[in-house]
């Protein structure tokens, strides 16, 4: 699964996710990637999220919407909300994977509960960072 989240210089955010799904999937199985609010979400009032991982758990937890809702209603930073979802709620359910996030304030982050997640970030005033593990 691949994805991107961005905040532009006008203060707007967007998210996109794309995937081939699971090797050997059957029965027309669909994961969280194309489900708005599960694997992909963007709201100028909070931020943008793209997810990868065990899709059924991300669907059940409504991960991407939940992160943005926590930012909007609880005042958490998007990193705090992402960590809460990935490191606590999703993990307690048995779900594995990660998210990338940008906040409405332009902050960038990621959170994952697996051994690694291939990722990168760059900003107008931040040099590019690329990490694999």
């Amino acid at each position: 699964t691949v994805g991107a989240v961005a905040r532009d210089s006008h203060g707007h955010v967007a998210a996109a996710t794309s995937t081939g799904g699971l090797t050997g999937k059957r029965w027309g199985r669909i994961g969280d990637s194309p489900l708005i609010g599960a694997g992909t979400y963007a709201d100028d009032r909070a931020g943008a999220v793209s997810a990868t991982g065990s899709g059924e758990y991300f669907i059940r937890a409504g991960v991407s919407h939940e992160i943005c809702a926590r930012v909007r209603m609880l005042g958490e930073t998007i990193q705090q909300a992402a960590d809460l979802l990935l490191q606590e709620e999703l993990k307690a359910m048995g779900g594995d994977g990660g998210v990338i996030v940008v906040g409405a304030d332009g902050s960038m982050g990621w959170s994952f509960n697996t051994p690694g997640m291939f990722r990168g970030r760059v900003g107008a005033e931040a040099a590019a960072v690329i990490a694999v593990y």
Partner: protein
Amino acid sequence: SNWSLVVHGGSGVFTRASLSPEQDAAFRAGLGEALAAGSAPLAAGGSALDAVEAAVRALEDNPIFNSGRGAVFTAEGRTELDAAIMDGRDRAAGSVAGVTRTRNPVTLARAVMAHSPHVLLARDGADVFALEQGLPQVDPGYFRTEERWAALQAMKAAHARGEPLFDKNLKYG
């Protein structure tokens, strides 16, 4: 000019131990290309929506990632692609599931958002919508890579031996 961009690009094949230095370099290069593709419109004052589409298209076109060209195979040996895009300005959204012939599924998802009254289109209907939108089409063989085909055969062999089908640390690492 306070723009920002984050990308992720998974393979679903490699663990840390099995990732060679050459493969590590290829993943880093692919992620770097996606950052470059997405940051170009942002640096020019363009929209976040254009940026995420450009970044994801770069990842879809790169066969080392599990999306677009290089996507994994279903049990039947087919490639079925899913994608979504969302605009934070008004929470407009579009997505597709199980599409088989559109070169860049994220662009099809954006077309659903921009040119249909719907949010999610699936399978044959989404393929037809892509044709109606005039989006670039490819033979399904375009998406195939030998690494993904080998992964499906290995999974089937493991299943035949009674071994678990799924290693979550591999898939989601």
